[in-house]
C-alpha cells in the first residue's frame, strides 16, 4: 500500500525543490505546486488525498488565503501547515484554520517532525 503524498506549495522554485528533496530523502512521497491555483489542480488530479499541505502564504496568482477559501467552498478536509517567512505566521495560521506553523528559516529536523506528526495520530499533539 503506497503512502499518501505531502503537497508542498511555495512560489520560490529553489525552496520548493529543496523541501521536496528533503522529504523524499525521508521516504515521503511529495507533490509540488508553485501557487494556490496549481495546488488546487494537484488536488483534483492526484488520486490520493494529501497527508498534509505545507503552504506558503504570499504567492502570485492565488495566495494561501485564496487557496484555503476555495478548499472550504469545496468542502475539502485538509491538514495544513503554514510555511512562511513573515512575522505574522502564527496569526495567519489561526486565521485560515491551519493546524501547524513552520516559520522560515526552519531546520530540517523541524520540517520532518512537522510532517511526521501527521503520520501517526498518537504523536500529533507533540509539535
Amino acid at each position, binding site marked *: 500500500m503506497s503512502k499518501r503524498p505531502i503537497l508542498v506549495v511555495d512560489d520560490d522554485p529553489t525552496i520548493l*525543490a529543496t523541501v521536496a528533496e528533503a522529504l523524499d530523502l525521508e521516504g515521503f512521497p511529495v507533490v509540488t505546486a508553485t501557487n494556490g491555483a496549481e495546488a488546487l489542480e494537484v488536488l483534483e488530479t492526484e488520486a490520493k488525498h494529501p497527508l498534509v499541505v505545507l503552504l506558503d502564504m504570499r504567492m502570485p496568482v492565488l495566495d494561501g488565503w485564496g487557496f484555503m477559501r476555495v478548499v472550504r467552498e469545496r468542502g475539502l478536509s485538509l491538514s495544513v501547515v503554514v510555511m512562511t517567512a513573515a512575522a505574522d505566521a502564527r496569526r495567519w495560521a489561526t486565521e485560515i484554520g491551519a493546524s501547524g506553523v513552520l516559520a522560515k*528559516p526552519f531546520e530540517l529536523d523541524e520540517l520532518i517532525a512537522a510532517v511526521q506528526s501527521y503520520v501517526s495520530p498518537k504523536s500529533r499533539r507533540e509539535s
Partner: protein
Amino acid sequence: MRRVRLVGDFTRVPALLLRAVEIGLVLSFVAVIAIPPPLPTLVVVGVVAYLVAVMSYDSWAFIREARYTRGVTRRRMQAAALASLAVVLALVCAGFASVLPGLSWIWDELSAVLGLASAIGYFVAFAPPTWLRRAWQEPEVRALLAQAVRLAGQASVADIIRDLEQATADAFGAPRALIALFDADARSLRVDGHELPPALAGAWRQQRASLIQTDFSAIETGQLQALADLDARAALSAPISTNTRQIGELIVLAPRSPLFANSDLELIELFANQAAVIFESKALIDQSAEVRAREEAARLKEDFLSSAAHDLKTPLTGIVTQAQVLQRRAQRDPSAPADRVGLDRLLEQSHRLKDLVLKLLDVSRLEHGSLIGERVHEDLGELVQHLAAQERARWKRVNIVAEPSVTALVDTPRFEQVITNLVENALKYSSPPSPVRVEIRHEGDDARVSVHDQGIGIPIEDQAFVFERFHRARNVDDRRFAGMGLGLYIARGIVEQHGGRMWVESSAGHGSTFHVSLPACTAEVAAPETAPDR
C-alpha cells in the same frame, strides 16, 4: 485756539499756524474788550472771518486725518469734521442774520440747530461714551474673531503676527500695532528679531493691560525702526498669556494719547487673549504635525525592517535545508558521488543572500549619504561599452548607441552599478529576441543615458513607486522575476548623490525607458588643467 489744540491732539499742526491763531485770538479779545459796543461792522466782520477761517481749517484738518486713520479713530475724526463744519455754517448764518435782518428768525433757528449739532459732534468725537466707542469698534472686533480659525491655520508664525497686528491696529483706529514674543533663550521680548525697549514692556512685567504716555522719540528705540518712524507718544499694551505660558505682549501705538479711552484697556485684554488662543492653537497644530511625521518615519522604518527580514529568511531557508539534506545524504552513504544539483541550489541561494545583504548595506549607506566615493571624469559611452564587453555572454541583446565624448564626473564603480542594474532589469523584463537599447547622448547641458526595452512595461499607477524601497510593480510575477525591489531605489540614490536625476517612461505591455541625467562636463573641463584661470 482750543479748537486747534484739539486738532493738534490728533494730528500735526504746523507751529507757525498755531502762533497765527494765538495772535488772532488775542487781537479779537482786545477788540471786543477795548472797543465799546456797538462794535463797528469792520471789527465784527474781522472777528467772524477769523473764526470761520479757524473752524474751516479745523474741519479740513479732521477730514484729512480721517483719510489716514482707521476704525474707531476714523469715525471720531469724521464726527469732529462734521462738528467743525456745523460751527462754520452757524457762523455764516449769524453773518446772514446781521446782513438780512428781515429773515433773522430763520437764521437764528438754523444757527441754533447747527450749534447743537456741532456740540453733539464734538462730544462724540472727543469724549465718546463707552457704548458708542464699542459700537464703532465692533466691526473690527467681529472681523478678528471671525478670522481666529484661519489665523491659527497659517503656515508661519510671522504671517499670524502680521495679520494680528493689522487687525488690532484696525480695531483701535491706531496707525500701528506690534506683537512682541518672549524669546526664552534671550530672556527678552523681541519684535522682528530686535529687543523690545523696556519702556514698552510694562504690561509684560505687571501681567496686566496698561496705557503708557511718553515721548517714544526720546527713548532708546534700538533697532526698532517702526517705533522711531512713528513718532509715537502713547502705547496701549496687554500681556499675551495663558494659564501656563507667557507668550508675549500686544502693543498698540498712537501718535497722541487721546486716541485711547480707558475702556480700551478691556478691549486690548480681549485682543491679547484672542492672540494667546491663536498662538496656542498654532503651537498645538505644529506639534501634532511633528508627531505625525515622526510616526510615519517610524512606520516606514518598521516596514523596511520587516520586509528586509522577510527577504533574508527566504534564501536562508534554502541554504539551511539544502545544507542539511546534503549532510544527511553524505552520512547515509559516504561513498555516493557529490550531489551536483543540491550544491548548485546551495550556491544559488548563497549568492541570493549575499546580493541582498550587499544591497541592504547600500541602502544603509545611501540613507547616511555615504554611498558615493571619489569621482573622476568618465566618457560614459566608453564606460558602457566596457561593461558590455565584460558581460558579453549575458548582454547579447544589448545594442549601444553612443555620441562621442559624453563626459560626466562619476564614482566609476557606483555608476557602473546603476547601468548594470538598468540593463539587467531591461533583460529580465523583456524576452528574446527583442533588443535592449542603451543610448548615450548630450541633452542640453546634461549627459543622458537611456535604457530602453520592449518588455512588459510598468503600469502607470506603479510608475511613481518603482523607485521606492521594496516596491515591485503589480504586473511582476514573483516566480518569473526574482528580485528584492531595492535595485532601482539604490540606483536612483546613486544618481541623485551625483547631482543627477533618474526617471522612467513606460506603459504596461509596451516596454520601458529608464533615463539617467547627469550634469555633463565639457571637453575642456574634462581635460587636465593646463593653466590657472584668470
